């Protein structure tokens, strides 16, 4: 074989090697790595109750939660009242009322409605009777609504019937804030 032919072959081999090297370098210039994250999650079923201010009612404290507060403010048989508190006067009592909303959401249930019941955590203050949608509340749970749909703000009217008798004569203590807690339970039908 001639020397020039040998040189040509050697040059071709070098070129091939260079090309292969370049290809390898190119393949390695964008290496990648992968990982997998497994997330374990079970979707259960449940109900969630949330209390909201009603557009026509007083503004709730902690509205949008399941533990809200409703302040009637200072109430009297004849004086002015807080915004969105209404009053009716009776022979021996007056009633202040305001609406608020309850929204019960459900997931993972075939139930389409719920039963709302309510009770007082402790007896109402002397001279005061609390009513929810005309149901007089006691420390025993009572049904307020038997078939209410999920997912909507349902307006309920809370009323406080206040005796006009003087404190000590069956009437409420005046001048100090009276507090009651209403416990609600929504049960899927």
């Amino acid at each position: 074989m001639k020397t020039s032919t040998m040189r040509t072959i050697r040059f071709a081999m070098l070129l091939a090697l260079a090309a292969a090297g370049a290809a390898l370098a190119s393949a390695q210039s964008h290496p990648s790595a992968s990982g997998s994250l497994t997330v374990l999650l079970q979707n259960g079923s449940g109900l969630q109750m949330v209390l909201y201010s009603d557009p026509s009612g007083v503004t709730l404290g902690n509205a949008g939660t399941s533990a809200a507060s409703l302040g009637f403010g200072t109430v009297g048989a004849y004086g002015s009242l807080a915004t969105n508190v209404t009053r009716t006067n009776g022979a021996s009592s007056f009633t202040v009322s305001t609406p608020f909303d309850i929204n019960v959401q459900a997931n993972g249930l075939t139930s389409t409605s719920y039963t709302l019941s309510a009770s007082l955590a402790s007896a109402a203050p002397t001279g005061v009777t609390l009513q929810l949608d005309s149901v007089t509340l006691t420390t025993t749970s009572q049904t307020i609504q038997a078939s209410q749909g999920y997912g909507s703000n349902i307006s309920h009217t809370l009323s406080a019937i206040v005796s006009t008798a003087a404190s000590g004569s069956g009437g409420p203590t005046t001048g100090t804030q009276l507090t009651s807690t209403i416990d609600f339970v929504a049960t899927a039908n």
Partner: protein
Amino acid sequence: MHMQTKLISRYWLLACAALLLPLTATQALAAANPSATGTLTVTATVTSSIQLLFNTGSGGVTLTGANTNAATLAFGSLSAYGTAPSNVTISTTSTLCSNCFVASTPISLVVNQADGSSSNFTLTAYASAPSNGEVLAVGSSGALSTSSGTPTTITSSGAYGSGGNTLPVYLGIPTATGNNTGLSDTINFVATAN
């Protein structure tokens, strides 16, 4: 043969259990009649209060807006010597004013108390400024003050309750007042629990 039957039964039991397990798990997630709870804390401060209402007095002129705290007493057409309107008494000898005649009619003033323990109330009143020299009076107080700052005390022991307090309202009209002169005056009452 008996052994085979036993084995087949066991396989069936296992198969059934395998089928039921996922169902049981799903049912555990979907608890029967789930419930949700909420609490609403209700607060109110009760304050004692009183209310003042006007009612038509016994034998008095019928009030417009009776049983409210903003009523109208219309005496009608008055003259010193003519016929007095129904339920209106005319006096030309009253000491309320000089050179005048006095028309009067009773009203019932009701003050209700709620959540209070006061036993009576004090009633004060003042009249608007006269337009034609007229004079107003309530009860036995004499001519009413026309100043809101120094109202006239009508009574210091008014009785609460729907029975009301009958009080005559007097309107003294100067005899010099022109014929067919319209008069309109306002009496502002304030009841304060004692």
